[in-house]
């Protein structure tokens, strides 16, 4: 088997920089003073991250857009309660994450999926299929489908930390802020997520 070289991960670009925080704070203050254009700037700045975050958790573009829109609306309604306006970004994405996880939980309440089921060894009546985007053909459709299913079995924090770090390319410090936990906890969750995925995918990763 050909050796797979380790892609020494480039440091993910920080999303919530000090400059970005100052800029956001100015927009938050202006929005609170009635300047809707200022809130529009915040929407424009974070809309991609908001939709992407939700999309990674829900795997559905329409649902992700709807959740992101709700999150912006909630953020607008609660703007006066944001203690530190420089942290608008993490705060908003925390709202997105929470709404997405809630939507996912309610979706899962009527579904359960395991890799065995996908492989045909489970009970057919419980089988659920997940859609795979058309752009996921680059790394092998079969592996990506298996990863989709394996991801569903990770605990929420592990899945979120792993997806935001590896797929979205966020800095771990930013993830810690959004998830309201320490940097070490994020690292641990990323590690545990990888480890569990490796176990679930088994031989698929050695082919």
């Amino acid at each position, binding site marked *: 088997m050909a050796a*797979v*070289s*380790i*892609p020494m991960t480039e440091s993910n670009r920080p999303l919530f920089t000090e400059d970005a925080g100052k800029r956001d704070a100015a927009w938050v203050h202006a929005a609170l003073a009635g300047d809707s254009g200022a809130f*529009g700037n915040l929407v424009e700045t974070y809309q991609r991250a908001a939709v992407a975050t939700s999309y990674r958790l829900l795997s559905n573009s329409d649902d992700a*857009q709807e959740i992101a829109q709700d999150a912006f609306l909630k953020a*607008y309604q609660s703007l006066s309660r944001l203690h530190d306006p420089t942290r608008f970004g993490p705060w908003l994405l925390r709202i997105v994450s929470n709404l997405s996880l809630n939507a996912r939980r309610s979706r899962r309440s009527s579904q359960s999926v395991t890799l065995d089921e996908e492989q045909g060894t489970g009970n057919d009546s419980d089988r659920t299929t997940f859609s795979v985007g058309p752009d*996921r053909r680059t790394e092998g459709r079969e592996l990506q489908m298996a990863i989709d299913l394996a991801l569903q079995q990770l605990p929420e924090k592990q899945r979120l930390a792993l997806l935001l770090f590896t797929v979205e390319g966020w800095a771990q410090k930013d993830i810690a802020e959004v998830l309201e936990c320490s940097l070490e906890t994020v690292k641990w969750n990323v590690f545990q997520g990888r480890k569990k*995925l490796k176990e679930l995918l088994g031989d698929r990763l050695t082919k």
Partner: protein
Amino acid sequence: MGQAVMNRQIDERDEWLLSRLLDGDLTEPEGIELAARLEREPELRASRDALARLNQALVARRKDVPNVDWERFRSRVMDSIETQSSAARVIRFPRWLRVTAPLTAAAVLALIILASYPPGSVTHHNRKPGEILTLETPRHGQGGVLVVQYDRPGPTITPPTAQASVVQVNYVQSAELQEATRRIDKARENEPSWRVYTAHGSASSPILADMLDTPPL
């Protein structure tokens, strides 16, 4: 001579080291030690390769992004905020104010009419006071409609003329309002210039000017 090959079970610490290697988080001594072990432990190499393949597969997902018209998305968000803000701008009166608002409106109307006459003219007329045209008996806890006709002298005294107006007041009956009305009537019963009558109809004193101070129901 080739290096001795060791087959050692991968434990959690090894996995942790490999994960940190992937992220560039190892200290220098850890990196040196792990590199040496990777050279001689095929199981560890296999585990590293599997981890790398998983990571590559996850990174490949970056290309899978939702197809969104961002300008349209932004407009939709701002529209929803505008809609929500407009709804919030509708003034929500407290319950007691909602109840007394019609009374207040009627009072204002009556006072405007009264105030449009020359000062003093009201006190010189001797026409019969106004009367209640309709009094819908309130149902318990609800209310009814009070229609009062009030008349006043016209702008000229000779020949005597009179003008009549009608005020319709939607009201809610409550013990508090009744008591407030009774007290006002009592206080004003010796003021004949007032010609708008209360729901009781028997008192000759007004209440409308006091509606603004009507207590919460």
